[in-house]
C-alpha cells in the first residue's frame, strides 16, 4: 500500500505544482506571492486534521487497549508536527510581503503555534517514557486533553485579540479563479497522500521495532533476506 500512496502523492505533487505555477493566473491584489497559499493552506488544514485523527487513534488505543491504533497515533505525530511547522513558516513568508510583518498575534496563527507545541509535547512525552505501553497510554491521554483544549484556546485567543486591537487579518481572496481552486485541491490531495504514505511507512518501522520477538516478523520477506 505504501508505494501506491507515495507514487500517487508524487504524481499529484508534480501536477499540483504545475497547475499552481503555470496555469493559475497572477492574483490582482497579491501578485505572485499568493502562490505560497498552494502549500500553506494544505499544510495548515492537514496539521489540524492529523491532530484530530491522532487523538482519535489515541482514544481508541486507550479505551480498547489496541496496540495498533496507539502505534498509528505515535506514527502520525511527527508528520503532523512537521506540517504545523511548515504552515507557520510559509505563513510567515506570506505575511511579510502581505501584512508587512513576519508574525501577527492573530487567533489563527497563535492557535497553530499552540498546536505545534501540543504535537511537541506528545512526542516528548512518548519519547521519555521507557515502558512502551505506559508511553502509549499516557500520551494518548495527553492527546485527548489537547483536543478538548484546542477549541477553548482558539476562542480565548480570538477574543483576546479582538479585545486588544480589533480583527486585523482577513482572507482577501473572495472569488478564487478556477485554476487556483484546482491547484489548491490537487496540492491538498497530494499532501494528504504524502502524509498517509509517510506515516504508514513509519508505523511499519514502529511495528517491527515493538514486535521484534513475534514469530511472524521473522517470516517477513524483508527480514529473511
Amino acid at each position: 500500500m505504501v508505494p501506491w500512496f507515495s507514487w500517487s502523492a508524487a504524481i499529484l505533487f508534480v501536477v499540483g505544482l504545475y497547475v499552481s505555477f503555470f496555469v493559475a493566473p497572477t492574483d490582482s491584489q497579491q501578485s505572485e506571492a499568493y502562490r505560497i497559499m498552494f502549500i500553506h493552506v494544505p499544510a495548515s488544514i492537514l496539521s489540524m486534521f492529523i491532530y484530530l485523527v491522532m487523538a482519535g487513534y489515541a482514544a481508541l488505543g486507550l479505551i480498547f487497549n489496541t496496540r495498533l491504533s496507539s502505534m498509528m497515533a505515535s506514527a502520525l505525530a511527527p508528520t503532523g508536527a512537521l506540517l504545523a511547522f511548515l504552515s507557520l513558516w510559509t505563513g510567515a513568508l506570506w505575511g511579510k510581503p502581505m501584512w508587512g510583518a513576519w508574525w501577527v498575534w492573530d487567533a489563527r496563527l497563535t492557535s497553530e503555534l499552540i498546536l505545534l507545541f501540543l504535537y511537541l509535547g506528545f512526542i516528548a512525552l512518548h519519547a521519555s517514557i521507557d515502558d512502551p505501553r505506559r508511553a502509549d497510554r499516557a500520551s494518548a491521554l495527553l492527546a485527548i486533553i489537547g483536543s478538548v483544549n484546542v477549541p477553548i484556546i482558539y476562542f480565548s485567543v480570538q477574543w483576546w485579540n479582538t479585545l486588544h486591537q480589533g480583527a486585523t487579518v482577513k482572507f482577501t481572496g473572495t472569488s478564487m479563479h478556477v485554476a487556483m481552486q484546482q491547484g489548491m485541491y490537487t496540492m491538498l490531495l497530494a499532501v494528504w497522500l504524502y502524509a498517509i504514505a509517510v506515516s504508514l511507512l513509519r508505523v511499519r518501522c514502529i511495528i517491527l521495532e515493538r514486535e521484534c520477538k513475534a514469530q511472524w516478523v521473522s517470516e517477513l520477506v524483508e527480514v529473511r533476506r
Partner: protein
Amino acid sequence: MNWGEFFSMNGYAWYIWGSYGIALLIFFIEIVMVRHRKTLVLEQLHLMRNAEDVVT
C-alpha cells in the same frame, strides 16, 4: 514568459521559493529519516536472527 521572469516571481522570489524550498526540504528529510529508521530496524532484526541461528 521566460525563466528569469518566472524565478523572480515579480519580486517575491525570496518568499515563494523560501516556502517551497523548505516544504520540499522537510518532506525530503522526513522520508530519508523514516527510511533510515527502517534500515536500522531491519539490521537489528537480522542481528537477532543471526544470534538465534548461532544458539540453535
